[in-house]
Every structure is written in C-alpha cells, then in structure tokens.
C-alpha cells in the first residue's frame, strides 16, 4: 500500500499536445499550397506515412507498445516539420530518406520519445542538406512569379518520376530563395537595396514565403494562447534575430539586410514557434529558454551572413541542442525560500 496522490489530473495527453501543434501548422500549409502549389501536400503525406511506418517498426524492434506511441503523434510532428523545411519539388525519396533518418536514427536510436538530445527534424534536414546540397536548393518559385505554372498533377508527376511536362525546363519552375539570392548577389558587390528590387522579394521577406511565414506566426500565437508553448522561446528568438540583424543593418545597410527581412525569410518564424519549441531537445528553465533561443538566433544569423549555407536554422538548433544540459544546469531558478 502506498500513497498514490494526487488522484486527479488535468493535463492534455502528449498526443493532444502534438495534435494541437499539427493543427497550428495548418494555416501555414494552406498558405504554402496557395503560394507554391499542392506539391507540398504530397511531401507531407510521404513524410507522414514514412514516419509512422518507421516509428512502428522501431517500436516493434525495441519491444515497446506500438499503439500508445503511434498515437502520441510526435512522429507525425517531426515528419511535418521536416517536410515543410525541404523544397517541395524534390524527388520522393528525398523526404523519405530524411524522415527515416530523423525517426530511426535521431529519435529511436537515442531512446525514442523523450530521450532524443537533438531535434529529429533538424537532424533529418541537416543530413539531407549535407548529402544532397543541389536538391536542397531547388525551391519552387512562387506561382505568381513562375513563368510557367505547374499544376498539382504536374508537381505530383515530377516528385515521383522527376519528369516535367514537355517544353518546361526545371529552371523555369524553380528559383533561388531570397536568402540564397541575397547571399550570391552580395558576393558580386551589389548592395542590398539593389538586390531587393528583384521580383522574388516581397514586402518583408520573399514573395510568397512571407505569407507562409505570416500564417506560421498565426499558428504559433494559437499555440501560445493554448499554453502549448510559453512566450520565452519565440520571443527570445525573434528579438535576438531582430537585434543582431538590426545592429549590422544599422551599421551598414548596403551590405546587410533589414531585421524585417531576416524575420520573414527562410525558416525564421517556423523555427521560432515550431522548431525550437520541441520540448524534448530544448531547455526547460525559463531563463534557459531565453538563452537557447537567443543562441539559435545568433548562430542562424551568422550562418546566413558568413556561413556556407543560405539559411542556418538547422545547424543553429543542433548546435544549441548540445548546449541544453549546460544551459539547464546554469539557469536553475531560485527555489522558494532559498537565497540562490
């Protein structure tokens, strides 16, 4: 006999939390489809199926109950985040390989749900970026800009067979991302004001992409309102990114893009609300969350500006994941009744 109190509970299950995260991604996905076509839906589906199969097989191999872990939807969340991070007009196996790596290696080989030190989606992304750099930069142009518009069936066909309709060249349907374009143009001694006259630039970030980012922001605010995430991580990330890009921009606006551009380009908003908010691989203390998110922001910015990749979110997150135990240990809050 032992004391088992409390006898009551009021907590959403892990599954319910993950479902809300998925729900919060829906506005972003809708904006994505609207801006770039339905191909992303195929990628999402491929990722989901791969993730669930991989999860089930790994649970079976590891002799864990399958049903409760499949319905925690954590694998689906990982799959969606990875799918949204890679170019949607990629061959089908790219997302499958990335998802497999994320679920099998980054998640289950480290002990499964709750034990992975690194964000599985970002590990999957990093593996793809390093292994298939060319494919990872083939982003579709926003539909409103593309000289030739690919329909959903065309995109589907391209994903599975790599074949485009006759007379359509791949370059006609893809374009560099604004971050990528900015980077290459800057090396050609163009200034930011000139570069951002290019049609791929929108009001804040890239054309099309900025709307998707705005939709992610909406979803993120929903997560905050639902108390799935706290304000710490997104605020610290966005603030730190704004500050560091602001400092460079104020110092030399000809060579450094504005904070608004950095906030609404690339994976900034997705990262702020959906990627660094992965609880398992992130810090737990309020102060730790601030340091972690600020660290991700600074490293992301440095990679964008000085690194070899147009965006740096994945590497920044992975690097800061390593620091989590250290951050947590040094940011323990003051316990009631203790001076420190």
């Amino acid at each position, binding site marked *: 006999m032992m004391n*088992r*109190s*409390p006898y*009551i509970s009021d907590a959403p299950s892990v599954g319910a*939390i993950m479902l809300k995260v998925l729900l919060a991604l829906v506005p972003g996905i809708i904006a994505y489809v609207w801006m770039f076509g339905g191909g992303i839906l195929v990628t999402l589906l491929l990722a989901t199926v791969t993730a669930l199969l991989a999860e089930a097989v790994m649970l079976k191999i590891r002799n864990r109950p399958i049903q409760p872990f499949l319905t925690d939807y*954590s694998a689906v969340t990982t799959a969606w985040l990875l799918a949204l991070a890679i170019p949607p007009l990629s061959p089908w196996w790219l997302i499958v390989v990335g998802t497999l790596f994320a679920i099998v290696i980054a998640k289950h080989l480290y002990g499964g749900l709750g034990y992975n030190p690194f964000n599985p989606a970002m590990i999957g992304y990093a593996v793809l970026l390093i292994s298939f750099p060319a494919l990872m930069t083939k982003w579709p142009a926003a539909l409103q800009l593309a000289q030739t518009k690919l329909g959903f069936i065309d995109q589907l066909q391209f994903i599975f067979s790599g074949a485009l309709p006759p007379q359509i060249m791949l370059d006609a349907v893809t374009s560099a991302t604004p971050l990528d374009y900015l980077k290459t143009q800057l090396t050609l001694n163009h200034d930011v004001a000139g570069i951002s006259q290019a049609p791929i630039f929108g009001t804040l970030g890239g054309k099309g992409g900025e709307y998707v980012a705005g939709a992610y922001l909406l979803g993120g605010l929903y997560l905050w309102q639902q108390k799935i995430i706290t304000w710490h991580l997104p605020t610290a990330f966005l603030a730190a990114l704004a500050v560091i890009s602001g400092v460079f921009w104020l110092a030399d606006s000809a060579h450094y893009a504005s904070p608004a551009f950095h906030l609404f380009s690339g994976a900034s908003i997705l990262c702020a609300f959906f990627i660094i908010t992965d609880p398992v691989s*992130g810090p*737990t203390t309020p102060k730790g969350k601030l340091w972690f998110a600020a660290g991700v922001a600074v490293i992301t910015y440095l990679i964008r500006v000085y690194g070899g990749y147009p965006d740096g979110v994945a590497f920044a997150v992975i690097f800061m994941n390593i620091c989590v135990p250290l951050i947590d240990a040094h940011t323990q809050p*003051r316990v009631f*009744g203790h001076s420190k």
Partner: protein
Amino acid sequence: MNALVNLTSLLKSAKEIFPFHGGVHPPENKAQSTQLPIGQLSLPEKLVLPLRQHVGNIPKVKVSIGEHVLKGQLIAEAEGAVSAAIHAPTSGTIFSIADATIPHPSGLPDRCITLIPDGKDTWIDKKPQNWRTGDRKNLVASLRLSGIVGLGGATFPTHIKLRADGKSGVHTLIINAAECEPYITCDDRLMRERADEIVQGIAIAQFMLGAERVIIGIEDNKPEAAKAMEAAVNKVAIANTKMEVVVVPTLYPSGDARRLVHLVLGTEIPHDKRSTEVGLQVFNVATVLALYRYFEFGEPSISRIVSMTGNVQQPQNFEVLFGTPLPHLVTAAGGAKADTSHYIMGGPMMGFALPDENVPITKAANCIIAASPNLFAPPPPAMPCIRCARCADACPVNLQPQELYWFAKADNFEKANDYKLFDCIECGACSYVCPSNIPLVQYYRYAKSEIIAADKAKEAADLARERNDFRLARIEREKLERAQKHAERAEAGKAAAAKLAAEKAANGAIKDALETNIHAAPGDAKDNEADVQKAAKQAAIAAAIERAKAAKAAAVASGDAPKNVVNADASVKKEIAEIDARRDAVGLSEKLAVDPVAVEDKQAKIAAAIAKAKAAKAAADAVKLIENASENKE
C-alpha cells in the same frame, strides 16, 4: 447573489496579495458538502482510538481494560516533548488495548484503545481556565493535557507551537483558513457557523504568542465564510487585537503554510528556518477553535469537523468524535453509492486511499471522500517525460520537477538533493498537470525515503566506525601494556636466573624445606609473626606456581603461543624473542615460571603486602558496614 458577496468581500480586502510561483486550480467540488450545516452523529457502538494520531511520540496509556472512563478523561498522556494526549470522547468502558487498522497510508495496524460507550455521555469535572488572567507559562503547560494538535491535517502538537512564555518573538499570527484542497469544506462550514468562537480562539493564540497582528487568510471561493469571519472580527472587540481577514485567490496550494504567509505578507520563510524564527506563526481555524473550547469550557480535544463527501448520497460536514468508525460516518451521509470502490482520507491532491473501510476517524481526518472509478479514473499508463516543463510552471516551490524526476528515476539521489528535493511539499501540482501521467510525487517520496534511509545508515556506519576505531585503539593500548608487563616480568626473571645460578647448589634443600613449611603453615601461623609472613609468602608462591602451570598447559594444549603475544607488533615480538633467547642461553626458560625459589624474593613480598592490604581493607569495610547499618536504623 454569490457573485455579489464575492465582490464585496474582495473589495473589503483590498489588501495587497503576493502571489507565489505556480499553483493549479483543480475543480473545487466543494459545493456538494456545503449545502447542509454541520451535522451531529449519534454515538457509535464503539470508539477506536489509535495512539498514533499526531506527529511525535506515542502517548502513554493511562487506563486499563475494563476501566470505566468519563467523557474528556485523559486515557493516554503525552510522552516526551513532542507528543499529544488522548481523551475519552465519551463515557464508557475500555474494551481493549490492542492493534487495529489505523488510517495510515502504510495500511499497517497500530496500537488502539477501544472504548465501548455507556450511552450516558457523562463529562468529567470540566475545569475552564481564564486565559486573560492566567500566567502564559502555566497556560501552555496545561495545553499539554489538552490533546490539541494542528487540525488542518498536520497534527503537530499545539502546545509546542505556543511554547512561547511571552518571548516568542512572534509578531504576526496567521490563521490558515485557505482550505485549498478540492472537496474539503470542514473549515468553510466551521467559519460560517462558529466564527465568533474561532475569533475567541484566535485571541487566545494571539495572547499566548504575544503577537501584535493577526491575519486570517481565506480563499475567495468561500465568500460566506469570509463574511462571517469579517463580522465576527468586527463584533468581538478585544483589547489590543488587530485582526484582518484577507481574501486570497483560489489557487492550490495556497493553504500550505509557507505559501499562505507569502500570499498575505510577501514573506518567503527561508527553507532552513521555521516560521517562528521570522516572527510568524500559523494556526488552522479549527485548531484555534479547539483552544477556545479548552480554555473557556475545559473541554479537551475529543472531536473534529469532518467533510464526508464524494460518492455518498448526501455529502455533509459532521462533528465526529475521534475513534468513530468510518462506516458510522458514511451511514450518516446517506450511505455510499453502489459503485463506491474505496475511501480517500484528505483531499484528492494530497490525501491517501484508506487501507480499509473499517478505520476510525482521527485528529488528522479533515475529509473523507468516497471514491469510485467514475469519480477518480485510474490514470492512463505513464508515457516518457517530454520535458515540457508544465510541472515546473505549476510547482509552488519553483522546483524543476522534471529534473527531480530524472534524478529520482536514476537513483541519482545526490543530484536530487542538489536540486532541492527536500523542499518539495508533495502537493501534487506537478503530477496534476503532467501530460505523460507520470506519478511524479511518488518518485519524490521514494527518493526522499531512500535518502533518509541512506543518511540513517551513514549515521549508524559513522557511529560503528567510531566505536571500532576506539576498540582498535584500546586493543593496541592493552597489547602494549601487556608487552610491557611481559618485558618487566622477563627482566625479573633474568635477575632471578642470575641469583639462581649462584644458589644452584642449595636449591634442592630449600625446596624441601619450603614444602614442609607450606604444609605446616596453617598450624604455625598464629605462633609468631615471622611464621605468618613466611606462610603467606609460601601460599602465594604456591598459588602463583599453580596459575603459571595452568596457563602453560593451556597454551600448550591450544598449540599456540600465549594469546597476548599473538597480536603484538614486530618490535614487541622481537623483544620477547630476545628475552626467550637469553633464557634459553641460561637454560632456564622452562624452569623459570615454575621454580618457587626464583620468584620468592620479589613476588612473595608483593603477595604478602597485598594480602595485608586486603585484610586491612576488609576490616575497614566491615566497620563501615556496621556504621551504615546503625545509621539506617536510626
């Protein structure tokens, strides 16, 4: 109407509130049991009074089986500093003093006094005391006989908390009327119905502590109680009394003493200090009411208010005599509904499942909840911790429950201690919000018990080591002493051997003479002093010879060197070996111990002296004995 009352009471206490970190707001479930006033129970057929009803030592039983006792009669007396007395809740006969199941999480039986009521409910001669004129020291001393303990559930003996003798240093008395746990409403009903008596009780506690200020903290989900207390405080104008009712937001666990102090004063009692060390003392409303009944009417602590709620037909609060079997209370509440599976004592956050329905109500029983699978669904299987830190957000102590969980799970107790495991108040807020349904508090209880057990084991080991060190030192010292004696003896032997060599020729003759003397000694002893001395000498020598022979034989028999040399260190052994070698050289090592002549000179003289001294002492003792005997007679 409710909202209006709520609003007015809130306005009245426009006092600043200092929120604590975290906290949760579970469904209150208090309305069910507050519909009816506090009910009275009929006398049960028997009362079972566990001796273990409070924090501290088990009281000493003062009655015997078959003895008739009166209501309020002391039947077990406080034993040691921290203990509380137990009184007969009604008049009747002591039926048994034996082990029975008590309401304790362990489910283990413990010593109980069973009383069969005689139905007359005859009080002892009650002795009210005027606390206003009484000496504080005496009042507190008399409280030891009251049996009053903290009735909020902590059951700490109240006389200890008031042990102030006017120099308590307590400037503020906090009355805990928060009652933050769901379902529990005993304090709520008590305040609604007996606010005047409570305020009188507060005045007593305040007087005994010498506190300047009193703050009564009530959660805002009890507006009627707050209003009643407010009215009572205003009505009872007691000199030098400043009492304020402070309404605090409903947020579990605001009724935890340290949390309540923070809420009303903004004071964080340091983790390693008691509230009195910072000039504060906290009492529950029911406890101060018991103080009032004790001093004003001379009634010891024999009953309490219990919320009987949950899965019963008519949840209600009752005034229950201690020792009342639970079924009696359940029946009074209309009986349990069909699907009742078990009973919980306390609230759903910190209470525990009773091992058995047939347990008595004790001083700690503020609430009994009839539970059903419907009411308290068994938790789904635990999932891994996803480090979401909801527990950390809910923790009222600002701990990191997710870290403590990892450490407890990994048996990393040192780290758990570093992360302030022992500041955990086990309120259950962390488990309440955990999406993975991890029974976090159970892990903390486990880790705490392991650490406590390890500390105890360490303490015992330290003590054992200390003892062992001392023992080793003693053995070493004795060894050296023995070696020294040995060496001295060997020296003596050497001297004697030299002498012996010189007198070798006369040896045989002397031996014969001695033997004759020994046999003759008894007869000759009285003749002259020289003979007496000689006889004593010879007797001693003979005895010494016998002892030495016996020792030698024993050593030979055991095939061992004499024990006292076995453990001698190298230098001692070497010394002994040298001595032996020298003995062998003179060919006397065997003879030495047995040859009477060899020892005659020295030892015989010593023995004689000892014999003389003994005789003198015996004589002196005899005289003393006689003197004492005569004194005693007088």
